[in-house]
């Protein structure tokens, strides 16, 4: 009888812990420039990145740059991912490497088009450093570059509103060493500029705590240590 109770207890603990593991997490910096931008740049070195993917889950973790291209938050994105990568007609695919996406939304915010493609070519070895750029290089044409080479071209509105850089995961089991994204820059009025002040954001979508650490000045590396905590 006691043994049954213990077995039940173990099952209960495992179920609770697994349910906690479905929480998403984002950890990135956001720049909202005073006027619209035509591109973004950052640089990073590949470090350990493990989504904890198995054929039975859809875990992923990534380091990327996002450009929000209209007021509906359509976006263009380039980065490096580890984990689940959808392959229709097959059991969920695993992919570790560079990728780019775009999403287009209608006026209600619904996504009506989503492109998700691998970027094959740059070294995926740990310790290699890579440059990521998104730049508008036509009236509505945006180029996605890794290590200065064009990999994709998208058609979006002529100006971008925000630039985000950082880490994103859809679970708590993924792990990343510190990648130290750096060299954040925006392309504005035909010239590249250091990133203006922005904010560093860490969010747990379903968690109990939300906190924001504000950058004093993004490109000078200073991070305000004051932490705002709100229990949702």
């Amino acid at each position, binding site marked *: 009888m006691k043994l049954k109770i*213990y077995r039940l207890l173990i099952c209960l603990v495992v179920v609770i812990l697994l349910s*906690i593991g479905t929480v998403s997490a984002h*950890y990135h910096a956001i720049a909202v420039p005073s006027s619209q931008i035509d591109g973004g740049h950052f640089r990073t070195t590949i470090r350990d990145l493990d989504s904890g993917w198995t054929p039975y889950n859809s875990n992923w973790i990534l380091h990327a740059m996002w450009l929000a291209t209209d007021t509906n938050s359509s976006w263009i994105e380039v980065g490096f991912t580890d984990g689940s990568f959808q392959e229709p*007609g097959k059991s969920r695919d695993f992919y570790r490497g560079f990728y780019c996406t775009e999403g287009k939304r209608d006026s209600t915010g619904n*996504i009506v*088009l989503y492109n998700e493609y691998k970027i094959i070519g740059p070294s995926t070895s740990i310790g290699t450093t890579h440059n990521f*750029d998104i730049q508008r290089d036509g009236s509505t044409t945006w180029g996605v570059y890794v290590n200065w080479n064009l990999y994709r071209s998208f058609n979006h509105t002529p100006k971008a509103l925000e630039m985000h850089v950082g880490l994103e995961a*859809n679970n708590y089991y993924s792990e990343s060493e*510190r990648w130290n994204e750096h060299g954040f820059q925006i392309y504005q009025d035909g010239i590249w500029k250091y990133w203006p002040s922005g904010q560093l954001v860490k969010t747990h979508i379903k968690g109990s705590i939300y906190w924001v650490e504000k950058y004093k000045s993004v490109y000078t590396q200073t991070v305000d240590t004051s932490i705002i905590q709100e229990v949702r």
Partner: protein
Amino acid sequence: MKRRLILAVVVLVGILFTFRGSALQGLEPDQVCGGDSLMDSNLLNSNPELLFSANNHLNESNFVDILKTIDYKLLQQEEGKLNSAKLMTFGEYAKIVGWDNRPQLRMSSERMVWYVEFYYPSMDHPRLGSISDVTVISLYDAETGEHLGCSYYGDLGQYRLE
């Protein structure tokens, strides 16, 4: 003895999951370093060397039969439908999915690829979550069979970064 063993397992599992659960929270901020020189757009190469060369001169027997790699049982379970699968050049693929004429994916427009179109009334996408009324177009390199990505059209939800 058994009781102690079970208790030990429970404690160990608890510690293990608590540690993993806090892994993301414990990350150091992705700080931004000063000292990087400003970007120069002249560095950007909009016509890079191709990594996937033209192969449309090859006989069809040189290409992977992508239809043989599809898990039809899974497709049926997910209520998906294979609309069409065509062997074509990458240039033709790019035109169908509405991409512009610039070099894409560093692939020759004369490289042979598979265009595979599916329809799903609903789908659980790892990134977008639950999406519905979805037409998915998959791109495969015909010579290697490598899956290179997809274009999704439909009611794709409201996934947001925050």
